[in-house]
């Protein structure tokens, strides 16, 4: 009879590692593809660490996935959290990587992390599976200046209806500015969901649990999707905030002519600012530790 932990790991293979092994992702650059592989491997490491997966199953799976991880471009700071990359690199160096001795021994920490793990993974899976968000991440993290300038030139032609079309048909969305704006809206939504999750987790931290360690390891896994530590990515995030608001405004101003648009713009900016701030707190704290 199979253990439930075995079934969980089979889900990780099916939802994450297998699509990566088969190169099924769209809107991906070599950097973001490498980050996707490293993130998925990070979930494998953390899942074994807290007891969500069994080490012996992980060893079997590792034989199937090791070559893919070795071939992936190593994602680097500031676009990727070093603590996660180092964990994967350590795995590649070890002969017997998932020995049971590496599982979490602190009972309180395990009791805190284990029940949250499937939800954190589901949250990350939703982000991973969102092709529009991935396009936006690619543009934030690894588009060269010429390609970015070209995208920005398209901005004048992008209206709310086109952004809506991209959101409605993500599988067919070409890599254009409308898709990037749609992806930006999706990213903001994922950031909001992430904030709610970590806010919830924080309320459940008992005495003796190292929440900062949790943020560095679990929050750090998905940090690369919104790489705000990178100056270029941060500047583009700001530009997308302004561009998105402009599109929203032009789209809606005629229909809602009586609205207080100055107040509405302030609310939008506050919302984005709150998302950015919580992302820094919950996902980028490992970088703060480095600094």
């Amino acid at each position, binding site marked *: 009879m199979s253990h*439930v932990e075995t079934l969980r790991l089979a889900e990780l293979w099916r*939802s994450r590692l297998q699509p990566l092994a088969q190169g099924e992702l769209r809107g991906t650059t070599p950097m973001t593809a490498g980050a996707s592989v490293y993130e998925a491997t990070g979930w494998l490491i953390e899942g074994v660490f807290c007891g969500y997966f069994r080490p012996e199953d992980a060893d079997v799976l590792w034989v199937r996935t090791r070559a893919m991880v070795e071939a992936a471009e190593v994602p680097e700071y500031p676009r990727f959290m070093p603590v996660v990359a180092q964990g994967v690199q350590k795995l590649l160096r070890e002969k017997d990587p998932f020995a049971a001795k590496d599982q979490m021994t602190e009972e309180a920490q395990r009791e805190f992390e284990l029940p*949250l793990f499937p939800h954190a993974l589901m*949250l990350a899976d939703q982000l991973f599976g969102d092709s529009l968000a991935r396009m936006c991440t690619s543009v934030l993290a690894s588009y060269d200046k010429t390609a970015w300038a070209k995208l920005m030139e398209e901005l004048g032609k992008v209206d709310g*209806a086109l952004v809506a079309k991209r959101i409605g048909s993500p599988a067919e969305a070409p890599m254009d500015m409308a898709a990037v704006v749609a992806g930006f809206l999706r990213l903001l*939504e994922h950031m909001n969901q992430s904030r709610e*999750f970590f806010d*919830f987790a924080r309320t459940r931290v008992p005495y003796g649990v190292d929440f900062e360690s949790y943020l560095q390891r679990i929050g750090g896994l998905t940090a690369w999707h919104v790489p705000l530590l990178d100056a270029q990515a941060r500047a583009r995030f700001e530009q997308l905030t302004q561009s998105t608001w402009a599109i929203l405004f032009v789209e809606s101003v005629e229909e809602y002519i009586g609205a207080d648009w100055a107040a*509405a713009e302030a609310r939008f900016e506050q919302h984005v600012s709150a998302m950015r701030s919580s992302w820094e707190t919950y996902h980028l704290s490992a970088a703060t530790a480095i600094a």
Partner: protein
Amino acid sequence: MPKETNFVEVEAGERDRHYYHRMVECEGSFAMLSLHEDVTDAIIFVHGFGGDSYGTWAQFQLLIDQWEAVKAEFAKRDLYFFQYHSVWERVESSSNRLLKFMRLLIPEINLEHFAMDVGPVTVPKEESSGEVSEFVVPFPKDRKYERVTLAGHSEGGVVIRTMIVRDLENTALLNCRLALFAPAIAGYKPAGLLGSMANFPGLGLLLEAVLVAAPAYQDLKDKEDLKQLKTDTETAHSKGRALCADILWGHKDYVVKPQKYACDTQDFEDCNHTQICKPSEDYPKPLDHVKKWPDEKKEEHK
């Protein structure tokens, strides 16, 4: 269909936590399955305009496994989070998609959608020649639902009700209970963008404001379609439990009109359109709303 399937082994401490199963053939939909053997209750959650299977219902997903006060009450229930293209698909099409999803669960569970191939994590690559498959289902093969609740938020309520009236001969469907949160059954109010954004924790309403031209939104503005849905539902209301909904509205909801059908029951909470379906330890009402089941004797009497 997998040749052989097995139930899983679970440690006692893990039994009360749900198992997350991704419904890969229904993109974006997933289930939180009970690891208890004797499960006969299921709740299917249907999000609203601009929402998704995860974001709209995240608080439910977190609380039922984490909050001791409700954990036991949900431990023996399976929860399904259905995803559809709420923004770009017509309501009729979404309800058809939901019906297909329901047919995976009632009257019999289609095991094919739950069987996981554990071969990749149990059979060493060097020992396998070609594909090695070993299928496991996370629950006993004879699991069958006797009490199914359909929970819908906003447009999700319209999608559910449309599905019900389109399939009035489906006994299993007619036996479901409807627990709706601010359903858009009387259409959206023409709320301004500012009004929409004012109380919004996430981007759902912001998207809604951008996407006023989307077909689903047009459906919900189309009073004639919604009037017909009301007429069809009220006319058929005696055919089954699923025609009559228990509705929770928000006093601060500026997005939908709180107009129930004659056969519905309703209650109000001090919430806006998005808060109404987001439970917390301070606001457990949504949890009660989806888990209560009508007294069978009272129903018969009625």
